[in-house]
């Protein structure tokens, strides 16, 4: 005969326990990062936009071959005197890129790498589909993220 009052009591108690949990969390520090005002520091291994050190590139085409989405487009010509390939243009299609980081892994000279740029909003679609990696100021519009300071 005590079952119903006992159930009732337990029910009320269970609800009050919930209030204790939410009440306790009211006094916890907020975890929000106010994003446009404060920016989080990306980790060391963060994989942002593709970036290139053109002087290091030996045009071995490994990154182009491993790219699962064919986001990289490398054109090189053979120098007849030195018998070495010379990098002519290196275009990166950020729209296709899946930020898997395979290109920087296979690169034998660490020429291609993924930087800390994560604010990838552009005004024109063509700006995203063909980013000229040879240009040094390609990510200048996102500020200091591009300079490598964004990572730890």
């Amino acid at each position, binding site marked *: 005969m005590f079952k119903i009052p006992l159930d009732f009591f337990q029910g009320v108690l269970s609800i009050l326990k919930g209030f204790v949990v939410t009440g306790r969390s009211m006094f916890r520090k907020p975890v929000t990062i106010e994003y446009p005002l404060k920016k989080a520091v990306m980790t060391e291994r963060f994989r942002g936009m593709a970036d290139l050190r053109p002087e290091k590139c030996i045009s071995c085409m490994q990154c182009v*071959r491993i790219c*699962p989405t*064919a986001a990289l487009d490398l054109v090189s010509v053979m120098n007849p005197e030195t018998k070495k390939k010379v990098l002519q243009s290196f275009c990166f299609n950020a729209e*296709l890129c899946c930020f898997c980081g395979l290109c920087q892994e296979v690169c034998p000279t660490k020429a291609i790498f993924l930087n800390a740029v994560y604010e990838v909003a552009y005004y024109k679609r063509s700006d995203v589909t063909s980013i000229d990696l040879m240009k040094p100021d390609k990510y200048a519009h996102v500020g200091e993220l591009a300079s490598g300071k964004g990572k730890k």
Partner: protein
Amino acid sequence: MDIAALVQELQKKAPAAGVELTPTGVVIRRDDVPLVFGLLKGEFSFESLQCLTAVDRKGTIEVVYHVYSFTHRLMAVLKVVLAMDDLNVASVNGLWSSANWFEREVYDLFGVKFTGHPDLRRILNPEGWTEHPLRKDFKGAGVVLKPVK
């Protein structure tokens, strides 16, 4: 019980059915599908059809069944080879309800018709489409990569 013992048992129970053990699975004839799978479910307590898919072997289509028995802890891989011009095979929906959606998927992607299936519609692709994209002769638009040398 292992797969070889299972095949022997099957051959004993259903001598007429052409059950044949190959390294990659047990190949059965198309007409014996209801018989063999009925035996598997009823006699050998294979409770669950874990996976049903198909492989386009250029000219033939292999329907691959992964049937699992929790009692024997045994995964049986069964294959039915269908000729490209006659893609019909009996549905196993009556034995395992999970076959319902698997068979719809295979029908959608390969065009294999499962006779006796209660609701054989396309499942992933839009209804009314005529092609079957996972066949090898399907040419779709999109990024095509060259094979690595």
